[in-house]
């Protein structure tokens, strides 16, 4: 039994902040209380449910030189992420129960945080034949995604239809694939001046409208992994109003950065979808605050130096994010866009609900997956200090505010920040 006292409890479900503490027993929260008691002193800092991060890329199998379950797990623990929902875009792809079992064996015992796998929707993620969704669910897959658009609409319709029959969650990457082919920046003056191939934000809208239409006719549970363009929001709002079982996520990068950050061809800012205009970024923040966008994640994508130190067009896409998700998200809190409980609905409660987990809550019976953080500590990020094997963060040398102090998974302390 462990009692954490003198904490500010961030309760996303109850939408409140409580001064008090909680009791952990058998890996679960046994009791929440207000006021003072004896126990492990949290120093008046914030105690919240651990983050459930959907869409984490771990390089196993195939790219362990970029990230292993050990390094990703350490990064997650240090970032307050208590559940990593992993992507299937590995080498080879996680598209069979055998591959999934192999990956899970690698994860168990090496990652200090929970690992839940997503599996590919189509074999080899090449958008032609559907995977064994049923077997994969039995093997533990919590959702199905190709992490890119399934270009063939008929194939995608059939996948959604089959998945609906099993109640499986399909995670889509809304994008019109032909329009976005070869693009690495958002259409506009800035892409034009840099001379980089561009894609209009409408490509995301077209992809999203297609996916939502298919979700409607198939009745499937559909989650758009990363919304980044304001152009797609009306369609999302319409689908939600119509009662479709659809949700949407946004990456922390698209909430805190814009296309101008690319500056002089800085490849750490090369992301998929590409960073958008400031208007789009603000629209994402507003949609999140209104609850139109449900989930915020890091979309952690480790890339090594070799694949980033290339001309922008040729460089690999993606950024690591497990350790910077919480401090970067604090920017939204400090700017007054979201309260801490609202932020934690997007970081923990909503993704947990989406996946049918009982995590993401501060309530008796919920797993004791917790993060203790100080929302105010300022610091300058030095990418060399990241625990991820790859250090491709766009926040390098940025001033951030908010630090994780300790993380518990199932009541076990998996991270504690050493006093400086």
């Amino acid at each position: 039994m462990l009692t954490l006292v003198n904490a500010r409890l961030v309760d996303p479900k109850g939408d409140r902040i409580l001064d008090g503490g909680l009791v952990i027993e058998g890996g679960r929260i046994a009791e929440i209380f207000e006021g003072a008691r004896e126990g492990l002193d949290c120093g008046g800092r914030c105690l919240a449910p651990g983050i459930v991060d959907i869409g984490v890329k771990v390089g196993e199998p195939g790219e362990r030189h970029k990230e292993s379950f050990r390094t990703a797990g350490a990064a997650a623990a240090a970032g307050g992420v208590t559940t990593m929902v992993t992507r299937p875009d590995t080498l080879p792809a996680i598209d069979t129960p055998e591959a999934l079992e192999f990956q899970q064996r690698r994860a168990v015992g090496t990652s200090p945080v929970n690992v839940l796998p997503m599996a590919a929707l189509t074999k080899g993620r090449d958008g032609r034949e559907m995977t064994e969704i049923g077997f994969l669910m039995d093997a533990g897959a919590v959702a199905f995604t190709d992490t890119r658009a399934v270009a063939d609409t008929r194939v995608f319709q059939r996948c959604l239809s089959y998945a609906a029959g099993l109640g499986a969650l399909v995670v889509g990457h809304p994008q019109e694939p032909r329009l976005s082919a070869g693009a690495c920046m958002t259409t506009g003056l800035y892409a034009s001046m840099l001379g980089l191939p561009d894609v209009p934000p409408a490509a995301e809208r077209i992809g999203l409208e297609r996916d939502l239409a298919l979700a409607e006719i198939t009745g499937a549970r559909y989650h758009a992994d990363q919304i980044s363009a304001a152009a797609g929001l009306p369609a999302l709002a319409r689908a939600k109003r119509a009662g479709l079982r659809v949700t949407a996520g946004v990456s922390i990068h698209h909430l805190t950065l814009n296309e101008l950050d690319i500056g002089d061809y800085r490849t750490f800012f090369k992301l998929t979808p590409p960073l958008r205009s400031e208007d789009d970024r603000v629209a994402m923040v507003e949609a999140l605050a209104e609850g139109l966008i449900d989930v915020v994640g890091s979309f952690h994508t480790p890339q090594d130096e070799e694949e980033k130190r290339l001309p922008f067009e040729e460089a690999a896409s993606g950024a690591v994010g497990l350790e910077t998700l919480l401090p970067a998200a604090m920017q939204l809190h400090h700017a007054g866009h979201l309260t801490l409980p609202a932020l934690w609905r997007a970081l923990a409660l909503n993704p947990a609900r989406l996946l049918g987990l009982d995590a993401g809550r501060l309530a008796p019976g919920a797993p004791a997956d917790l993060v203790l953080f100080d929302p105010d500590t300022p610091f300058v990020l030095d990418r060399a200090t990241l625990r991820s094997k790859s250090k491709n963060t766009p926040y390098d040398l940025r001033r951030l505010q908010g630090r994780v102090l300790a993380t518990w998974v199932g009541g076990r302390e998996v991270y504690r920040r050493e006093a400086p």
Partner: protein
Amino acid sequence: MFAHRHLLGIQGLDRAAIETVLDLAETYVAMNRRAEKHSRVLAGLTQINMFFEASTRTQASFELAGKRLGANVMNMSVASSSVKKGETLIDTAMTLNAMHPDLLVVRHPASGAVNLLAEKVNCAVLNAGDGRHEHPTQALLDALTIRRRKGRLSRLTVAICGDIAHSRVARSNILLLGIMENRIRLIGPPTLMPAGAERMGVEVFQDLRRGIEGADVVMMLRLQKERMDGALIPTMREYYHRFGLDAEKLAAAREDAIVMHPGPMNRGVEIDGLLADDINVSVIQEQVEMGVAVRMAAMDLLARNLRGRNEPGGAAAC
């Protein structure tokens, strides 16, 4: 005043820097017209021309410029380099850097590649064209040509016509002509116009005659073969009909207007062959001549800054 370590683009140059290059280039124009075309301002320096993309004209121009100034010039073409063996751009740059070149002239098909390379080497880097980004010496040679013909490089109306979207020449020219305070017009179908063009401080036209109305300078751009045939324009003949320049359409421009083209030309696609050869209006051959002089001036200035940097008490160049 030309306090730059590299020449990566027109972006970052100011009026004074541009005028410094052009003024010095004038002296090299005179020198190049003499029988004895040799100077020793780059003597002892090594110039490497690194072309990751095929080029005859620009490479020859840089080579000649370096040789006339007494540099040791080496040409490296991509076909014979280890880039084909999977070596990254940075590794190639580091390898070359270890050989202590002083001037590195680089052309690369990817936008920003030359900037990336410049971060990793100790020598002065000249951008000879990177993707769709910039081609600064082309804009400078165009500027010199205009200044000599028009007697000034400000308050002119310059029309740039053709495939603006994919043209690094257009980008560098828009920047340079903007810095020098000219009125710039871009002419072309929307499929060949860059997004956000209207925010570049230019006027956009889709009609050639209206676009060149009253223009002092008409700059035609090359239309790449792969952009034709229904991809971005329906056919060559429709393009020529709407956007090809001939004497009849040119009548809309000022009477003393000059016609420019960065070359190589597609006669009968973007420009009428007879017009291109008309020495009364076409300055295309003069552009080529100015190219050598401008490149000599740019390398001379960069070499001065290199020497200043390496000598005690020398002016620090950035």
